[in-house]
């Protein structure tokens, strides 16, 4: 192994861990991307090191993106971390945010094989999608027992959502006192995660999001379906 290749591989790794973009159009990191895509040894080293750290690497549109692998305690977010990040107190609020993020994905993607040509979404579009998705549960909401409201269930999410006013004031602030506020809170978080970009009232999906959505869901669909079916519940929550 050449010393120079090892140095390059470590450089790529540190830039990626720092949250920098390594791609064909990434300014200072172009040469690193070139090394990754043309030098088999560098490619191999980077992938091996990331594998050992349980970090997944995806290449999309000539750019590299990384994300923490399953159950990665060192680099992944826990529910507690995310609650802190989003300023939430309890898990059910966090699950509502997860639900909103998922609905934002469905605004752009129907399945992982390709996006549906929606260029951008607005807060009202997302609100409509969430309303629509929870509608059949909201319609069937009857008197819930205390136990049910405390549990993390879709009924709880639907009830929380239906209890919120659409918006409390004209300018939408990222606070959890209205539907629009919740969505804004989530959108701000997604922007901070470099998954979305904002232009006035329009929110666009960034390449990083596309890379992860198209690759992650595609390659993990079997495992994800198992989790959805409840077979891996214990492993899934870390």
């Amino acid at each position, binding site marked *: 192994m050449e010393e120079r290749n090892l140095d390059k591989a470590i450089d790529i790794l540190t830039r990626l*861990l720092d*949250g920098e973009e390594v791609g064909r159009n990434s300014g200072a990191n172009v040469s690193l991307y070139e090394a990754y895509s043309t030098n088999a040894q560098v490619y191999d080293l980077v992938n091996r090191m990331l594998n050992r750290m349980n*970090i*997944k690497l995806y290449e999309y549109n000539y750019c590299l993106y990384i*994300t*923490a692998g*399953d159950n990665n305690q060192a*680099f*992944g*977010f826990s*529910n507690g*971390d995310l609650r*802190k990040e989003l300023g939430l*107190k*309890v898990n059910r609020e966090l*699950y509502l945010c*997860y*639900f909103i*993020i*998922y609905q934002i*994905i*469905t605004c752009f993607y*129907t*399945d*992982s*094989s*390709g996006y*549906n*040509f*929606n260029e951008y979404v607005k807060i009202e579009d997302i609100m409509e999608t969430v309303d629509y*998705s929870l509608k059949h*549960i909201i319609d069937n909401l009857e008197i819930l027992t205390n136990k049910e409201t405390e549990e*993390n*269930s*879709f*009924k*709880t*999410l639907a009830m929380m959502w239906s209890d919120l006013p659409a918006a409390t004031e004209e300018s939408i602030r990222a606070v959890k006192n209205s539907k629009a506020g919740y969505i804004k809170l989530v959108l701000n978080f997604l922007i901070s*995660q*470099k*998954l979305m970009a904002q232009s006035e009232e329009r929110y666009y999906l960034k390449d990083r*999001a596309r890379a*992860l*959505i198209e690759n*992650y*869901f*595609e390659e*993990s*669909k079997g*495992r*994800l*379906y198992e*989790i*959805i*079916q*409840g077979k*891996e*519940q214990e492993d*899934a*929550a870390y």
Partner: protein
Amino acid sequence: MTEEYIMMQDIIQEHKERIENIKKYYPFFKLADNSLLQWKEGKYSCLDMGYITMAVLRFFIDENNLKDKDVAYQEYESFLHTILVRDFQLKVAEEEEKELCAYLFDKLLNEGKPFSFDYFDPKDHQKKTIRMKLIESRIIDSNLFYRITSEAIEFYLDTKEIKEESSISVEQLLLSKLIDTQNFKGGIEVVKRINREVNKLKLRRNEVLAILSADVFEGKKVYEAYINDITKWFDEEQRLFKKNSELIEKALEKAELDKKGKENARFFAMMDEIYTLELEIKKAMYKHSELLSLCTDLQLQADEIVKKSKLSTLRNSFDFNHAMNQMMEKDNVEAMEALILPLLQLNVKKQFSFVLTENLLSMKAENQEETETVTEGEEAAYVYEDELEEERISGNFHKIVRILFEKLQREQAFTLHQFNEELIQRLGERVLKNADYYTFLVHMCQKNTYSVREIRQKPDTFFEEIVHEILERKSDYDELCFRLIPKGEETVKITEMLEISDIQFEKVDESWKKEI
């Protein structure tokens, strides 16, 4: 009070306007209601006057406005003939059919009189009559021709029967008519309506795209119908826009010529209307070309969607809506973690939380403690591998010891070779390949003499412990006492590869042991 005022205002002030608006429907219902039951003793009652009215109106629109020519009676007659034969399968003599056509035409023209409808105008406190014609006649070069009236076009337009094909075209035709009659104000309204239609088509384009994205098969059908309609319109539309622009130019020239002898104020008002109309038409044309470019985009996108869909049908992909439905069905909210968390960046900001510091200082309980659910279950009985081994060894030893003791009871002395034969006889040949047997011999050879009674009192070696266990269950061998005499160089051959030293087993008295 205010509400009541508004209501009364609606009822009184606007009544005339409302009646004006609905008057265009009146001739149709009057014609449709006036069945053919009375004529010729109901011979033609099978004919639907409503359908015939609509068909004839469409025919007039086509001739007058699309082909820009007046209709002669013979043309109407031949058109109606096709309708009667094709749709009502009417087979009558030529003379009789001519009579029928004339009768129907008379009805459509209301015997030359306008269709009139009386109503009360609450504003003026008097009865008024509204009049309307569907078809009007004029004489050109001593020949009688017919044209459809603008009200009749408006009526046809409102029924939206030809909307899917070209409502814009009909609006344009109406516009030509209005410019012809110098009704520029009405023309502006029509162009605005055209613009609204174009906007609707633009919105429809987005709908088509949305359907395509969601369901490619359904979307493809809608897309093809939409593109088909749109492309059909474009040629016609452009021609009509051009014609209307020319008409406006002519109207402007005419207005300039007519300037003399007219009041200034009226002239300027008219010019103003013409200019506004021209502006609106230009806007409409711009919007139209915008729609055209949007359609081109749509074609490209549709092609790409269809291509992607073809590819995706070949490989199984993760369906987001299906996944969400499954989660809801199972009520598995936690599964969302596995779907969302991997999309986030690395969590590299590891900081010691200040909240935790505070908690440490004040020893506060956490805001929400997550409870652990303890499920009750039965403790499993674990058996370790060495326990299994021990059990096996002890079982084998028991069998061998029992056979040995039995043989000792029967015989005074025997060799290992003879004992082996006994073992083979009782346990099969495989016993000599069992490692436990040789372990047993090794353990047994640790001592020369064994007295069962002594073993019972105090087991000394591992072998004696095994014997002790057997004796606990069976006490027939209490008197047994035996010794082992190694036979030096004599060996017992077990297999080709294996041989062991022979041993003599000999039963002795207890006294003999004491002597030693």
